[in-house]
């Protein structure tokens, strides 16, 4: 999937490709990440996606204080009010709880459970991949063949199998999703690292007396972190959908905690009464997931990484 490329060539391509449409780039040297930021700002789609993500993060952080109503307080008389109701702006759910408040508070768990596994997997996967790629030999064989085994499971199946075996819960869901993403990130990290391990600057560092660990930490990590990071951001959307999917199946968050996937599940019975309200949590998942995808695509082209 990922074309064999090296971070060094990425940096080089980034500079060259930036030149025609930004001649001033030669005057003011921004460095690699400066160029990436500069190109990203000029990408309207990626910027719009970034704004959506920031707004959702802000809502997630502030939600306990800014929800218009109590997200847990139901009312048997005011169940399944339609969207546009005078008191319930986005309607009410099957227990008469305010939808907009629940959607706002639900962003906390949905985002947390979607992003955390990728973050942990980014750290673990990079570590394993860099180690396998740099050390090579038997270490590489053992690590990468183990990873091949996990690749033999389609990711949805692996996530569900692990959480099914571990049992429902937020922690178990995060553990299972992390196990899904570590092999994927490690494989990318390994291929990028293998690409640069014979470079001159690695030899130079070796000759200067740096230890293997120092070389991995400084020379290798500095040059491979970009492509691995971009690849990891592209996994956030999958992770969001999967995390909410686990809650949708009843394997993640437990009621009465609001989480978008779980809300979608409990509202399934309401599709004949109030279809619009029942579909709302899915709109939220979709919006965040597509924003992460578009932002990741923007980042990828800003860094000139081809798929």
């Amino acid at each position, binding site marked *: 999937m990922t074309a064999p490329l090296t971070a060094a060539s990425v940096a080089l391509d980034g500079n060259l490709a930036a030149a025609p449409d930004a001649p001033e780039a030669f005057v003011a040297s921004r460095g690699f990440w400066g160029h990436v930021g500069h190109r990203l700002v000029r990408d309207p789609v990626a910027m719009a996606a970034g704004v959506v993500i920031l707004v959702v993060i802000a809502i997630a952080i502030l939600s306990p204080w800014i929800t218009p109503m109590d997200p847990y307080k139901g009312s048997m008389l005011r169940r399944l009010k339609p969207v546009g109701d005078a008191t319930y702006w986005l309607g009410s759910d099957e227990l008469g709880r305010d939808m907009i408040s629940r959607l706002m508070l639900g962003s906390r768990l949905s985002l947390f459970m979607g992003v955390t596994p990728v973050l942990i997997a980014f750290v673990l996967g990079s570590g394993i991949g860099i180690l396998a790629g740099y050390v090579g030999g038997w270490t590489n064989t053992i690590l990468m*063949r183990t990873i*091949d085994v996990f690749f033999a499971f389609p990711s*949805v199946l692996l996530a569900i199998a692990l959480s*099914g*075996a571990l049992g429902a819960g937020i922690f178990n869901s995060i553990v299972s999703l992390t196990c899904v993403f570590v092999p994927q990130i490690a494989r990318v990290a390994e291929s990028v690292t293998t690409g640069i391990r014979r470079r001159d600057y690695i030899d130079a560092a070796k000759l200067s007396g740096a230890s293997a660990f120092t070389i991995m930490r400084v020379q290798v990590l500095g040059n491979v972190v970009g492509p691995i990071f971009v690849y990891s951001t592209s996994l956030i959307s999958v992770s969001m959908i999967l995390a909410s*999917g686990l809650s949708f199946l009843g394997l993640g968050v437990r009621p009465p905690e609001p989480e978008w996937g779980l809300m979608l599940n409990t509202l399934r019975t309401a599709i004949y009464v109030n279809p619009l309200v029942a579909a709302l949590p*899915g709109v939220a998942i*979709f919006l965040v997931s597509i924003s992460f995808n578009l932002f990741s695509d923007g980042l990828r082209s800003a860094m000139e990484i081809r798929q």
Partner: protein
Amino acid sequence: MLLYILKRLVTVTPVAFGVSVVCFLLVHLAPGDPLSAVLPADATQQTIDEMRSAYGFDKPLPVQYAIWLWHVLHGDLGVSIATGRPVAQEVGRAVVNSLILASVATLIGFTFGTFFGFVAGYKRNSLLDRAASALSVFGVSVPHYWLGMVLVIVFSATLGWLPPTGAGPDGSGNWRPDIEHLRYIILPTVTMAVIPMGIIARTVRALVADILGQDFVEALRAKGMSEFGVFKHVVRNAAPTALAIMGLQLGYLLGGSILIETVFAWPGTGFLLNAAIFQRDLPLLQGSILVLAMFFVALNLIVDVMQTALDPRIERA
């Protein structure tokens, strides 16, 4: 070619072995004793011990694994705790239903995906190209279980055109290819097809754009070949990769169908897995995952071999 297939078989064996270890360990990953779900809460220590030795849980793990593997290799996946029927039989029935769903969905996804991909690759940066890339982003970003719900809301709850759940009017759980059953398969397959459609459209677009930019296309046009003739060359060059992606997508759909099957109450492996998880039916869980994963491994192998056979540019190393 035969040598190549043999070589691939040798490399795939350790992976298959690893998969079986993971599936075996799944049961032991579960918190507490694997028997705690079956035994009553007030079981005496003697009953527990008897059950442990009856199921072989008193033996060391490697021994248990060896016994389990021996049974699996003979087609015995154990007995379902919930129904008392052999797991192999239950999974076999469900796999057929899932396979029908996943194959039809892959076919729909491939047809539309290649169509959009070719149009977008030929007319790059046109309105159609934008629409095709929007469609592929939609395909990978949409929570498909929600899309299924939306389709049910529109076509079943509101318009009343199609049945919302199940595989057939009699509820027997066996799908047959007739008009009545066809109505039941439309919504789940369309929902499922969105994912491979997006991915295939994206891949084919990139492939076609790449092929059209190569020198040999220029040469074909220069010698006066008709645009249709050039098109045939493009198809022949793009086919191996596109078909490989299609094969892999079939595997992903088969393994990932649990959410869609739950939404539509489709009597396939996903539905079976769901039941196994919530009834803590561990033999059934273990068996269905093993079958699905092995199917995926086999499919990967077949795709690999077929791609090598079709594409003379790949070295049979």
